[in-house]
Every structure is written in structure tokens, then in C-alpha cells.
């Protein structure tokens, strides 16, 4: 793993992506400590002010400072993205490991369920989950996470199937290791590289799908600052206040580019075979 970190460090793209991510995460964590104003504070006298020294990203139709809202919104957008990947990872690891290691009818059953989930494009599946659970940021996070589970299950199961045929797994079994112990102690550590790569790139997908659902009005409600919500808010002011959408739009894109830069390099370093998967 240290070799991987060294290789990552040598690649400029990954360093740049990592630096941008560190900045975004730092701002999201620091939040109110670095913003000068309240993201909810309206000031109609300053409504629709273009970017200036006092409001570097301008203000929206209620006079709220866009920069403050972008920084505050980072928290919710990142938590949604990361939370969704944690859910997808948990579901994917659970189902993928059991499916790959157990084989037989359990494998068949799990893979048929995954096939059915795959029949729903991810945004549509997320839409179904939101339709059942209702609106809100937590539900969007769950929806995005569930919609990504099939991709994780397929990748993890595929890798388990390869690893479990290796001689060292047979040795572990021959030494009397119980199936659960063999799976968790011997198979799991050997499939982690592709899983880490997928999880990284899935953060970019989740941020985009999460922001899309918020943009459609299914996520947190205004005036809560969130990138998708704020971008949608600026839709009707493109001519008089293009900067309302520009702030959150640039924030989403920069973050996703940064995650992709890190993810792409991680893939090249850890597992080049994944190229076809992460090209999607």
C-alpha cells in the first residue's frame, strides 16, 4: 500500500485532485468558522448583486451570499455522496462476499436479485426509493446508495470467485479454517484493491446523482443550502443572475473532477484491469 501511495504522489493529476478534495473537505468541515455570513440571512437590498469584493460569488434573489451557501452546502453534498457510498459498500460487501463465497443456490438467488436491480437505471431506482421513503436529504442518500449496490455486488462477487480458487485459499481451508474465517481473513483482504478504486469513483457518481435528485426537488427543501438545491434555485434567474447557478455548478464539477482524477490514478496504480468498469 505504501508503494501505491508513493506512485500516487508521483502523478501530478492525482496530487492536484487530492489537493482540491482536501480543500473542499476542509471547507465543508470548517463551515461556519470560515464563512463570514449566515447562509440563510436575506438582504433584499443586495438581491441579485453580481460577484464583487464583498460577495465574491454574488448574491441570490433574496440577497443571500452565494459563496457562504456554496461552502455550507458542501457539507450536505459531501455527506450525501460519502454516505451513499458507505451504504453501497456495506450492501455490496455483504451480498457480494456471501454470493461469491457460498456459491450454489444462495449465489444464484443473490445474482438474480442483482439482475433485477440492474434492470432499473440508477436514477430511476433512486427515484423509486425516494417515492417509497419520501423526500429529504437522508432519503436521497439511502436512495443513491441502494441504486449503486448492484455495481458493487457484481465487482466484489467477481473478484471473490477469482481469489477463492487460489492455492493459498485452498491451504487455509485445508488447515481447517471455517468458511466465514476464510472469507473474512483471507479472501476479503485480497479483493480490497478493486473495491477501493470503485468506492472512490462511486463518490463522484453519488455526488452527481444526489445533486440531480435535489435539483429535481426530491432532496432537502430550500432554504437549506445544498449544491443541487441552489443550482435549481438559479434556473429562473439565468439572464439576470447567472452567478446563482454558477457557484454551486462549479463546486459540483470541481469536486467531481477531483474525485475522478484521484480515482483514475488509483485505478491505474492499484488495478488497471478495472479500466473498462470505471470508464462508464
Amino acid at each position, binding site marked *: 500500500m505504501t508503494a501505491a501511495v508513493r506512485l500516487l504522489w508521483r502523478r501530478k493529476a492525482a496530487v492536484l485532485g487530492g489537493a482540491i478534495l482536501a480543500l473542499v473537505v476542509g471547507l465543508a468541515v470548517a463551515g461556519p468558522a470560515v464563512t463570514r455570513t449566515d447562509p440563510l440571512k436575506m438582504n433584499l437590498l443586495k438581491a441579485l448583486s453580481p460577484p464583487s469584493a464583498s460577495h465574491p460569488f454574488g448574491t441570490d434573489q433574496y440577497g443571500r451570499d452565494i459563496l457562504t451557501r456554496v461552502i455550507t452546502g458542501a457539507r450536505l453534498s459531501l455527506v450525501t455522496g460519502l454516505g451513499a457510498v458507505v451504504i453501497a459498500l456495506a450492501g455490496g460487501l455483504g451480498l457480494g462476499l456471501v454470493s461469491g463465497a457460498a456459491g450454489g443456490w444462495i449465489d444464484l438467488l443473490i445474482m438474480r436479485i442483482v439482475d*433485477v436491480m440492474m434492470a432499473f437505471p440508477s436514477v430511476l431506482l433512486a427515484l*423509486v426509493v425516494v417515492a417509497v421513503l419520501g423526500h429529504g436529504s437522508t432519503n436521497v442518500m439511502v436512495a443513491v446508495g441502494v441504486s449503486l449496490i448492484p455495481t458493487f455486488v457484481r465487482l466484489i462477487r467477481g473478484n471473490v470467485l477469482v481469489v477463492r480458487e487460489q492455492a493459498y485459499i485452498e491451504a487455509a481451508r485445508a488447515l481447517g479454517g471455517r468458511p466465514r474465517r476464510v472469507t473474512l481473513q483471507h479472501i476479503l483482504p485480497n479483493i480490497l484493491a478493486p473495491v477501493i478504486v470503485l468506492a472512490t469513483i462511486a463518490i463522484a457518481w453519488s455526488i452527481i446523482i444526489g445533486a440531480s435528485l435535489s435539483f429535481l426537488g426530491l432532496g432537502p427543501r430550500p432554504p437549506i443550502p445544498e449544491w443541487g438545491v441552489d443550482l435549481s434555485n438559479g434556473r429562473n434567474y*439565468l439572464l439576470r443572475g447567472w452567478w446563482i*447557478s454558477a457557484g454551486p455548478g462549479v463546486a459540483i464539477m470541481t469536486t467531481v473532477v477531483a474525485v475522478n482524477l484521484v480515482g483514475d490514478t488509483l485505478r491505474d496504480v492499484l488495478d488497471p484491469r478495472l479500466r473498462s468498469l470505471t470508464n*462508464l
Partner: protein
Amino acid sequence: MFVYLQQRLALALPVVFGVSVVVFAIVHLLPGDPVLVMLSGANATPEQVAELRAQLRFEDPIAVQYARFLRRALVGDLGVSIFSKRPVIEEIADQLPSTLELAAAAIAIAVAVGLVLGILAALRPNSWLDRLSMLVALGGISMPSFWLGLLLIFAFSLELGWLPATGQGGWRRLILPAATIGLGYAAVVARLVRSSFLEVLGNAYIGTARAKGLAERAVVLKHALGNALIPVVTIIGVQLGNLLAGTIIVETVFSRRGMGRLAVTAVLDKDYPLIQGVVLVSALGYVLVNLLVDVSYSIIDPRIRHRGGAA
């Protein structure tokens, strides 16, 4: 060929069954009294509640309810929209052509732009052109479609005034939404064409073609292109689902009619019969398209068919 088709159909049937179960389950997974939740957005009178309760017959055993749902769905009866009071199937029939038109235009843009970018990048690897096209591709992958859509509206409608921003009808209103979806895809296609082309160009038969004195253009167009396209066809098939997802967002951004917008409106209005209908038709459409793509590339690349037949 017939055997392969049979095998693929046999694989698709359990998926179709699973999809129908998921769609049926949407209403049953709702927290609390499903009838009240279904009518919560519609300010329903007690009579309407009683009517819907009688119509849905939730007191029947779940298997009976599912059999009824399936029987009706098979003859195209997907229920009645709570809001418009029209049959769901009619609502869908009204919106589907618009989405298909958008999807077709988006694929055309994606393939055209993606092929050109990818081939240019592959022919001069590591040149500025290669780096630029891969940079554009990274931008395309990282750009959420709603943000790209707004940028296109801002540039081409509001600032330049070349194209209408929203609405329906005519190719001029189709260009911007189709480009919004298509350019994102073009990025994926370009990256794939590049890597696939580079791989094909390294093959011995390309060396042979060059050695016998063929012009570079003939080498690329006659010998490399066809072989490099096989994975591209695959990826277009795989990506069709995302394309459908793209229409959900883009139709809202451009205020276009279509299945995507219908789905979002249905979820926002909590119009569950409509949600079920749209989700069922979309997912089945996706399964069908995947089946067609599978069969079509077994025609392009006969090895797939034979491998399938042997298995």
C-alpha cells in the same frame, strides 16, 4: 442464432418477473396506510379514500393482489392516475414518443462526437490533441447534466439567441437537450474508442496492412475502425440505461414533455399508480433494449454467439 436468442430470452424472463414484483411492491412498502399516503398529495375526500380502498382491495392476500396486478398489466391496464384521472397507459403513450426522439438524437450526437474525438486522440497518442480530447472527456464525465443544460441554455439561447431554450416541436428545440445528454456520453465513447483503437492499432494485421503499402487512411478506415467498434457498441448498450436517466433530468431542465418528466412529476405529486406505470414501462423498455443490443452485437461479432451456444 435462434438458440442464442432463446437463451437470452430465457435469461430475461426472470428479470421481467422481478421487475414486476418490485413495481408491485412500491405501494406495499409505503409507511403507514398506503391508501392515505397515496392520496396525501390530492386533498382527498373520505369518499375518494373509500373508493380507492375498494378499488385496490388491500385486504386480499398479497399473492391474490399480485396476480390481479399482473393480469391487468399484461393487457395494458396500469390503473388510473390519481391526479389527471386518466388511464396511466394513456399518459405514458402521450409522453413516450418525445423521450424516444430525444434519446435517438442524443445517441447520434454521442456517437458522432465521441468517434471523432476518440479516433483523433488515438491516432496521435500523447499529442496536444490527445490530451485536449481526453480533457474534454474528463469534463464531460464530471459535468452533471443539469449544469451542462443550464450552461447551454445560457450560451445558445439567452446570450446568442440561436436556439429556443425550452418546449417541444421541431429539430431546433431538440438540439440543446439532445446535446446535453449526448455530450456527456460522447465523453464516455471517446475514452473507449481511444483505448480500443490503440489496442487494435497494435495488432499484427495492422502492421501487415501498412507493410503492403496501404495509405494510413485505408488502414484506419478499412482495417482498424470495424474491429475497434465492437466494444463501443457494447458500451452504448450498457449506457442506454444512463441515457434514460439523463432524460429524467434533461426533460425537467428544458421543460420538455416525456417519460422522465412524467416520472419526476409523479414522484413529487405522490401519484403512485403513475409512478408504478412509468417505472414498469421504463424498466421493461431497458430490458428489451439490452436484449436487442446483445443480439445485435452477436451479429456484429459472431464469436459471442458461438461462445454463448457452446456454454
